[in-house]
């Protein structure tokens, strides 16, 4: 009954054609995304790539639905031309729950989702004069200490 996610962790991504909504994204992002997917390990990529084009310091918002009962890892990155990006996470009531700018690892964040919820991820460029493609990819993992039965 226990899902053996570990058995499939080596797979780059598992969900076929889990199409996402984003800008008509740029090809330059592809290599950056591939690197990002590698950084998700040991989390399993959910198969989706959320990419956005950032311009003149304007942030982009991605509204994501997440299930209760899973550990998640958010990994963000960007093409070289854009430089470093940071992200903030808000709940649906617009309460800030995370700011990567104050984190030791500004490119990723791991958490357990204790309810099915929509989170809002805002991605910013550090250098407002630059523009280009940024991405957010999501990894998931079954928690070790609990299962959905406990919820």
């Amino acid at each position, binding site marked *: 009954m226990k899902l053996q996610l570990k058995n499939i962790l080596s797979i780059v991504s598992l969900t076929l054609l889990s199409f996402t909504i984003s*800008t*008509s994204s740029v090809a330059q992002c592809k290599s950056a995304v591939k690197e990002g997917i590698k950084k998700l390990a040991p989390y399993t990529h959910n198969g989706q790539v959320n990419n956005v084009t950032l311009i003149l310091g304007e942030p982009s918002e991605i*509204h994501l639905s997440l*299930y209760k009962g899973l550990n998640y890892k958010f990994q963000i990155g960007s093409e070289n031309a854009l430089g470093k990006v940071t992200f903030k996470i808000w709940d649906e009531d617009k309460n800030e729950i995370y700011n990567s700018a104050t984190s030791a690892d500004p490119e990723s964040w791991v*958490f357990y989702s204790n309810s099915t919820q*929509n989170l809002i991820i805002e991605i910013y460029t550090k250098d407002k004069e630059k523009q280009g493609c940024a991405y957010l990819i999501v990894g998931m993992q079954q928690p070790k200490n609990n299962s959905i039965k406990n919820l």
Partner: protein
Amino acid sequence: MLRVKSQILILNILIQMKRIIKNIAVFIASVSLISCGGSGNTATETSADLAEVKTTMDSSSSVIFYNIPSPLETFTILKMSGSSFDKKVLNPTDKISKYVSSFSKAANLGAYSTDLSLCFLYKQNQDFNGYLKNINDLTNALGVDGSYGQQVNKRLQTNSNNLDSLMAIVSEAGINADQYLKENQRNSTVATIAAGGWVEAMYIITNIAEKSQKKDVIGLVGDQKIVLKNLTNMLEQFVSDPEIKSLLVDMKDIASVYDNLQEKKGTPITSDKDIISVGNNTSYELSKEQLNSILEKITLLRNKISL
């Protein structure tokens, strides 16, 4: 490359306009057909407003995108509940010849991709290959380059006995196809594929919930209240497309059942060591009548799509 630069230039101009006329609704990213404008802020800010700057989102300056959980996420939860594989709830592969219009091809590409994800998680090799062929055919029929080319097909044949390898190749091809459609500004097709995939997943989990009466699976159906909100927001951006508009009507009909659900506070739980727990620890409970009502509505919608 040239097109991307010109799109960026257009966006630059739009942003400058927005800064000048701050109350006018926001930039419509010409690159993206799917931006849904955030509400504009008022031009005059009081000192109290300014005091809240650090804790309040400024949606006026953002381009908004929506996404829903992948079928893999949904079926991971399903499998964690101990539910068994049931081939009878999948869309039969021999229906592919019925999918003639672009909308039908896109929606059923999403549906077959969902079925394939379920086959993968439950290690149903033979069925997996059947859905893989259909996905290949529909992707080609939609004119998507860069995904299922000869090179990919060759890799698939070489790894035909290894389900994990097959899925990795197919998944990579899927991401390429997704990118291809976006780069070619076919975002309504992307949204239709996502919607078709959700309808199929919803049909599967609702049927399993009704048959098994497992509390966890019924809870998973209840939690689609949250997912459906993001999905309808996504589709709203293409409401000028009559087929998506019709789809949206059906989805809002399903959403109407969820309107009456009561939020239930769960027992506090402990997450893994060193992992922060996020959320309000609530869930939605469906009555038997509500579950049956959703099953009835999702079956009608699924039959419209899968024919």
